[in-house]
């Protein structure tokens, strides 16, 4: 019975999970925060700005229902990110990030240029911007050869610049 597609019954309601995701609830404080920071060209100019304010909630719901990236944050919030076909931000940003608290309420939403690479920020924060380059040099035989040449000729890495 369970494997017959004609007589299949959804005892646990799993087939309706996508449809059951309701619109995000936005409290007055959170929504004012979004409007204050991410709409308009006169205030908080370092923040990314939405180009179509009337689309913010609709796109936020789409982002949470069908995200390209989901990041669970240390304080219990969840951050959803999704790239759209058309720009959502005034600087051509096609992505939208939505932060939702553990009760499913909207915390904030804003345009983003790209999807966050998991762990990349923390890696750069702890190891520094040049860690990857130094790691490549460590394993690159050509850089070893250059070290030998430098040793023989008495040159240093800084002489290359």
């Amino acid at each position, binding site marked *: 019975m369970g494997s017959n597609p004609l007589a299949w019954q959804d005892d646990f309601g799993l087939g309706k999970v996508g449809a059951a995701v309701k619109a995000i609830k936005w409290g007055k404080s959170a929504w004012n*925060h979004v409007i*204050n*920071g*991410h709409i308009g060209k*006169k*205030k*908080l*100019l*370092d*923040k*990314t700005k939405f180009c179509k304010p009337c689309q913010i909630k609709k796109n936020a719901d789409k982002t949470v229902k069908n995200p390209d990236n989901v990041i669970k*944050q*240390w*304080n219990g*919030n969840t951050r959803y990110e999704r790239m759209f076909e058309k720009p959502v931000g005034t600087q051509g940003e096609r992505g939208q*990030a939505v*932060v939702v608290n553990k009760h499913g309420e909207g*915390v*904030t939403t*804003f345009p*983003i240029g790209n999807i966050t690479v998991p762990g990349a*920020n*923390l890696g*750069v*924060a*702890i190891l*520094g911007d040049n860690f990857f380059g130094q790691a490549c040099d460590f394993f690159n035989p050509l850089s070893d050869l250059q070290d030998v040449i430098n040793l023989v000729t008495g040159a240093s890495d800084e002489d290359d610049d």
Partner: protein
Amino acid sequence: MALDIHVASSIKKAEVKRREMAVDEALHELIFTKYSSIAQNLKQLSRISDYYGDASFNGADVKVLEAELRSLASSVSEQPLHSLLSEFADVCVRAAANDENVYLFGD
């Protein structure tokens, strides 16, 4: 996307100014995870535990915040975090010298 730090004499003036600096999200997380045992005892610093929230520090609070940032900076082992905390403390010093307030605006 960042937690932006502004300095001005009022929140309305802060909103129309450009930021002094931004707090990186990963470094912010490091403060309240790895160094949470220290940070939770720092009254002013603990007010910025929400990366997406706003906060304001007026008058004497700015000087207390600066002292807390210096204290935490002396305890951290990551150079980028030490630099961030020191830079933030320097912003507080400049704000206090001009009788201005420090405002943080989250995304």
